[in-house]
């Protein structure tokens, strides 16, 4: 027990900042992440249709913004929030690209959706590891 006292003392002195637990698994957060991942997976079939793709990216943008707004208020969720904000940045780029006039390439749509899918998958997998 005497050997453990220094550990306890250090914990108290540092305010246990090194022992900050991350937010537990959140069903709603994981659900939106899965939605974005699934959309990225399935929307590629619409890439030849610019109008439909514009609608698809608008939907994904709303989901990504919703996710950031939701994750922001969860306590001890800073690491997940950082990832979610980065995911939103990728989605936002697609939305903004389709707001500009002119024809957009099928290749851009497909590669962008692949980037979103990869990013969403990384966040989704990490979020799933959190304690229930």
């Amino acid at each position, binding site marked *: 027990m005497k050997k453990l006292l220094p550990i306890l003392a250090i914990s108290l002195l540092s305010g246990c900042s090194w022992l900050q637990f991350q937010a537990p698994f959140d069903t709603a957060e994981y659900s939106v992440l899965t939605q974005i991942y699934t959309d990225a997976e399935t929307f590629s079939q619409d890439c030849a249709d610019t109008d439909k793709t514009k609608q698809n990216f608008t939907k994904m943008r709303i989901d990504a913004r919703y996710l950031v707004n939701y994750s922001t208020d969860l306590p001890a969720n800073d690491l997940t929030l950082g990832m979610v904000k*980065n*995911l939103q940045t990728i989605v936002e780029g697609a939305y903004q690209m389709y707001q500009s006039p002119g024809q957009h390439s099928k290749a851009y749509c497909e590669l962008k959706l692949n*980037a979103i899918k990869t*990013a969403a998958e990384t966040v989704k997998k990490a979020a799933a590891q959190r304690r229930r």
Partner: protein
Amino acid sequence: MDPLQTLSQLAGYPAVADASNQALQIAQAVQQGQLNKQEAAQLLEDLKTQNQIAAGANALQEHLAFNDAMSGLILIISNI
């Protein structure tokens, strides 16, 4: 855009699992005239952002592992 130059940008993004594949696809699409410069630039920037996400995922995983270890230690201490 030079495909080799595109691929060389990958050096900084080792955390993204299929970064090389994505960069190769971007480079090929540019060479075939399927992407304009603005689109290609954004897609390459996305790789950088994906790398930040991967780094965040690793940090979260390490944090969770550390927390698990500390929880075990606290449990042991509380039982002494």
